[in-house]
């Protein structure tokens, strides 16, 4: 099955289930039952099911619980349903009361980070594939250290072989900090090339002070700057692909905790409904 066919099928199923839920809650309301009780319980159950994916990820050795990819599909589309359920549950209005506001805010953050996760999971891998070599995230700091060593050796050699400090001075003022650690993270995430463009412009400005021999060193240094930029790019995008989970997952547990408190309070003050 192609990805498009799978997506169409899943969207159709989600819409159908959503329509059934909407009809059921409408009928519930018309029948003078408390609709929020039904949607609340459905929402809590769905959120618990969604959080089970975290457990699934740890149980890689168990074949009977299904492929991780199937769980992700279930997680994503149930997540979309939850957003719909949540809107129905709060009655299409902004909740009042500090606990409800906090709960709603947590839900929005969890759902928002989830949607963001889908967007970046589909978009960023393509960008990573199309720029530079494939590099493992944990090895990037080591590669940056190697590049820094190469750059510093180049600068020292330029001084000894050309008797000129132009490249050394340029390195000290413009590149030392650049080679120390990953830079221009926000630029890379937002798709801007401002950081690299600025550095390369400075390279061009320096050319007027260089002789032919120095220009060779300058060109080699420029290549290292471009390589470092590619590593920074991978560090930024791979970091984001890993990092969004550090927002999404803790928020889920906070949301579940506050949801349970909300549930207890609702039943405590339900007045026998």
């Amino acid at each position, binding site marked *: 099955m*192609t*990805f498009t066919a799978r997506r169409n099928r899943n969207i159709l199923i989600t819409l159908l289930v959503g329509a059934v839920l909407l009809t059921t809650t409408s009928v519930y309301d018309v029948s003078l039952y408390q609709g929020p009780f039904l949607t609340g319980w459905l929402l809590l159950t769905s959120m618990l099911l969604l959080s089970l994916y975290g457990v699934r990820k740890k*149980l*890689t050795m168990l074949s009977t619980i299904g492929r991780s990819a199937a769980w992700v599909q279930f997680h994503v589309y149930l997540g979309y349903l939850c957003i719909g359920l949540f809107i129905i549950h709060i009655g299409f209005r902004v909740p009042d009361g500090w606990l409800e506001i906090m709960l709603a805010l947590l839900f929005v953050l969890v759902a928002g980070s989830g949607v963001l996760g889908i967007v970046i999971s589909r978009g960023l891998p393509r960008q990573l594939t199309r720029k530079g070599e*494939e590099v493992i995230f944990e090895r990037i700091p080591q590669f940056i250290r190697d590049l820094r060593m190469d750059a510093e050796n180049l600068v020292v050699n330029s001084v000894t072989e050309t008797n000129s400090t132009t490249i050394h001075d340029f390195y000290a003022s413009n590149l030392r900090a650049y080679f120390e650690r990953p830079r221009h993270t926000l630029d890379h995430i937002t798709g801007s090339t401002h950081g690299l463009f600025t550095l390369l412009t400075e390279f061009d400005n320096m050319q007027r002070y260089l002789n032919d021999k120095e220009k060779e060193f300058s060109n080699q240094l420029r290549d290292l700057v471009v390589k470092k930029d590619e590593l920074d790019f991978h560090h930024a995008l791979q970091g984001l*692909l890993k990092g969004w989970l550090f927002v999404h997952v803790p928020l889920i547990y906070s949301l579940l905790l506050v949801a349970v408190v909300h549930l207890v309070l609702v039943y405590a003050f339900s007045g026998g409904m």
Partner: protein
Amino acid sequence: MAGATRIQRPQRWDNPFSPDMGNAVVDRILDAQPFVNMDAAKFPESASLHDIIQNDTCLNTYQRGDIVVRVGDYGTSAFLVISGQVRVVLPPGLPASVLGQEEDEEKSFWGAFSQLWDNSKLPESRDISRYEKGAASSSTKDTGTNIFLQGVPQVLDEDRTVLLGPGEMFGEIAALARSPRMTTIYADGDAEVLEIRRQGIRDIRRRIDEFREHIDKLYRERSLKTHIQQTPVFRHLSDDIIDKIAEKILFETFGDFDWHTSYKRFVTQPSAERLAKEPIIAREGDYPDGLMMLRSGFARVSSEVNHGHQTLRYIGRGAIHGFEEIVHNWRNDEPVGLQNTIRSVGYTDILRVPTSIIEEFVLPTIPEDRLPKSFGPSDGGASQPIVSGVHPDSVGSYRIETSINTGLLEFLVDNRYINGTATMLIDLDRCVRCDSCVEACTVGHNNNPRFNRHGRRLGNFMVANACMHCADPVCMLGCPTGAIHRSALGGQVVINDDSCIGCTTCANNCPYDNIRMVEIRDDKGDFILDEAAGTTVMKATKCDLCLDQPGGPACQRACPHDALIRMNMRHRGTLSRWLNR
């Protein structure tokens, strides 16, 4: 390393094939054919004929009905009948239920689950008691507890069989070609059969010319007829016709059997230079003087495009080439030449059936509507094969229309990834670099990952550094202990950690750098050292396709975005569908 554990470095024959091969037994074997005529002086003192018989063979006894080898099993041993007789079951053979074929043992649900806390916290930790002399199991033996064939008289009545007596050999094809057993063989009465593991056969072949010639003769005689019978074009023919075809068939070999050594040198060269080094089996435009059948290895089918060659497809064992052209020329007065060039990729064994034989015995027996259409200007030279019995996914079928991008196809062929039966392909446009695959692999292997999520790539596809479980596993060549072997039923290439002596032969042989040598530690985390040399003891490690885990390769199951697959590259149809999802 003051606290390091010291052991004696494992040696080739620390764990002989069988502990029961005493001097008396060995002497009796040496007095039997064919060993009695061998010149023992041709063997070096360090690996004498006596030593080989003692350490690389095992004398098995069987009773009537005991199965010696089963069809489909993978094995690396050949067999020699010492006394009694064994019976070879000819095609179509016995049903699997009669043969009692069992699955490999895998971890239970609880066994798999408990890995969460049972796994060692240390990298490459081992239980050193397993490495004491004689402690290792002979798990690479092809025969264990005898399996009894039910209903021998009925088998004799219903199935065609052939008797083999003392001095006769069998199983050499699977042992030498690293292929599955082609037939079932069982004891016809009380029989003694000497099982010789591949390392032993290799050493004797190297020293004794007559033995080598005898093995090669058997190999050619026995595999040929079966191969013809298995080819769809000939499947419907009678035994008499098959015999006539077998008589006329020409054997041709192209390329280098040790292709893996030259491959590493050539892989970085430009495509045109690499292509020029692939021997041409038949050139585009040549007269089709025979039907070419691939007996082993791989071939590239290409077509001239201006000054270069465009790869159209790759073919492997069981495939045929030139049939459409022969059919066209048989029907039409205006003959055509071969439409494509076919080149040997690495090493290729070709059986060439002369065109006259095809025209006389084969074409008249195939209904017209099942033959490929003739070539013509209207169809641009294309024709469709319509011979029955060809699996659409098989590399053996010819001209399977797939939509694999030409660049990718050439990348797969140039880098010999077509050799893989479980090649790890990663779609980098889907991969979020989460390393769930690596983590799943780690959990299934005592906290040690068995592959690198890294490798050569073309466009958005990467072939990761994970064992591909090759159709032609050259890593198995030269292993002195047989530690690297094919598993009994699945055919996965696996390493027996107990009998691996860390010689690095397999790692050096692997053309894809998918075998990693590791320094092992004891349960306290100290490196295990060789008693004599004081150096660390190494073991070869690689992906075993999670052989002992329920559900197969954990890496594929753990991928959350359907980015990773273990692909049998023979299944071009499946590959094409996956690439074009």
